């Protein structure tokens, strides 16, 4: 049993270590700006969180930003996952002549450094009138999140035994039904994980939000928060932290919920 207790202790130690920085973020977001001297606090001394949050929402369009980001993350993540699942299915199950080539073509999308195509993208968006539109934002987010989702889905689908698809083919099922009825449900967890990763990625993206949008009804929340801590930031770190905490809450909740679902499905199979 010492093996188990040793493991338990190790896990506890690691979790506590991991929680320390998160704890600091929360505590210092509670500090009112007037009392913040730059020395971080370890314990709550006052309940300045709500005034800090209010300051964050007042100085920047954080509310509208949250709505925009929600739309981009949900729609962008979902569309990307579906498209990448289709492509992953094609590359692993369907009779593609050069699966390696297609894998690399799509995988390249995740390799390119993001700053590389900011400038041509901006010019392209400006000439096609996609600049500062919600469609434009969703479009680029989908394109950016397809490659990684594709990678995850493809590798997961590789673990599905060939016999399943072979017997389905022999039964005369067409590709679309096979995809929808067999592979999609099997890959449910991978799809969900891919969605959550890409949801988080889109939620936290700053670069494209800043470059490709300008109006309050298009800008994502990270861009609006950047207003607070920019070069001319007139609010102190506690307000920025409070804003960042509020903006991070949905992704944290999502991860927490996902965890629960995961643990349940593990119990079903153990």
């Amino acid at each position, binding site marked *: 049993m010492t093996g188990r207790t040793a493991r338990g202790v190790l896990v506890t130690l690691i979790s506590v270590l991991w929680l320390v920085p998160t704890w600091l973020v929360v505590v210092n977001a509670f500090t009112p*700006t*007037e009392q*913040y001297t*730059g020395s971080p606090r370890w314990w709550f001394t006052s309940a300045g969180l709500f005034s800090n949050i209010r300051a964050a929402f007042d100085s920047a369009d954080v509310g509208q930003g949250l709505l925009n980001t929600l739309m981009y993350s949900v729609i962008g993540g979902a569309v990307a996952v579906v498209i990448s699942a289709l492509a992953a299915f094609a590359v692993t199950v369907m009779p593609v002549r050069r699966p390696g080539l297609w894998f690399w073509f799509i995988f390249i999308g995740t390799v390119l450094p993001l700053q590389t195509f900011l400038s041509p993208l901006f010019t392209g968006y*400006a000439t096609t009138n996609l600049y500062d539109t919600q469609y434009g934002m969703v479009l680029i987010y989908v394109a950016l999140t397809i490659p990684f989702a594709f990678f995850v889905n493809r590798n997961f689908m590789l673990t599905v035994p060939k016999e399943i698809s072979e017997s389905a083919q022999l039964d005369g099922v067409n590709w679309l039904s096979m995809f929808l009825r067999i592979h999609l449900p099997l890959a449910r967890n991978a799809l969900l994980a891919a969605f959550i990763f890409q949801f988080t990625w889109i939620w936290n993206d700053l670069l494209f939000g800043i470059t490709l949008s*300008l109006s309050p009804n298009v800008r994502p929340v990270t861009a609006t928060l950047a*207003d607070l801590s920019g*070069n001319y930031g007139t609010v102190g770190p506690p307000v920025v932290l409070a804003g960042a905490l509020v903006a991070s809450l949905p992704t944290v909740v999502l991860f927490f919920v996902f965890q629960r679902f995961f643990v349940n499905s593990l119990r079903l199979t153990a």
Partner: protein
Amino acid sequence: MSRPAAADVVSLFNDNPSWAPGFQAAGSRLRPLSGFRLAPRAVPNVSNYQQIVRMSAQTGSTTDLIKWWNGYRLRDIARAGILADVTDAWDEAARRGWSDDTALRSTFTYEGKQYGVPLYKSYYVVFYSRPAFKRLGVDVPTTWQQFLDVVDAAHAKGITPISSGGATSWESLIWFQQLVNGLDHRFYQELTAGRASYTDDVCRRAMALWSDLYRRGAFSAPDAQTTDLPAQFTQGTTAMCLYGTWNTGAFLDNGVKDADLGAFLLPPPPGGARSVIVESGVLAVSANAHKLDAAHAVARAWLNPSVQTAWSGFLRDTSADPGVVPNVGTVRQVAAQVRRERPTQAIRYWEASPPVLIEGNVQELSAFMINPTRAQATKTLTNMQHRADKEWKVWTS
């Protein structure tokens, strides 16, 4: 950016979203004078802002007015032809007695013509915490020696004498420019025009002064942030900070009471004369503006005292019109000292030489702040001069 706007509005692009209310206030005064209001659009990230301005200049979808930096940074884009000539606005301001500042005007000039009007005119002053000074029992220093005495007194009492950041930002140029310009204003101008060397005697003396101050324990750690300063000033744990008056508003908004804050011009180091560093933003008219005439009208009316009062009142900073001073104790203190002492004015180092040269040199200065020894100073100056040799050739080609 190129969507149709209301008839009496000119669009303005800038990199500071928090200025929006100020532009609205200025716009309401501009309306009766020029017939147009301002519709500001902002991108909070400075380098993204610059990218967008350059990229949109290529696609022709730009706003009517652009905020930029003066000096060589203005020349950098003016010579690409994306800005309109606003010399008439300056002539008008001189004629009406609003602003007759030839030193300032020269920093807005490229090939004899001006390409923007001054958005503000900030001075680099020493902000100080009145509670801290009271605790130390000292007055505002008027000579270099008195300044050193204040530093020593603060250090003895465990108060951080001077907060000075810049390990990872542009702020590392603040003390460099102050000391070089303070020692010899003429030399500073020659140096930044590429006619003097960074390895000359004045620079060496400035770096020696700087590292001596570090040896005295005058400075905070080089990664200090000015956003931490308000509480430090109020509690009196930090005494001074050399910074631009444009940050007064931020200090006041973050908890420093106007009564607890003050500012003075740093006395010149031994051998130097009274001189102050000036920073001035640019309001430029885009050459491809949709409403070119309207933008010109706004530029001409910009320096009108009623507009400046509204704008500077919001900014809580000094204006290019010396007669307009906002009702903030600290700013009034600075304006009064400038009026009294008439120091020579130098442009901020950031805009004083070609941008690529400055960016690289500022990084050298940041590296010096992390290791402020005499040996490092020599290395820093040598590197800066190497870069100057290279970049001046590129600029003039």
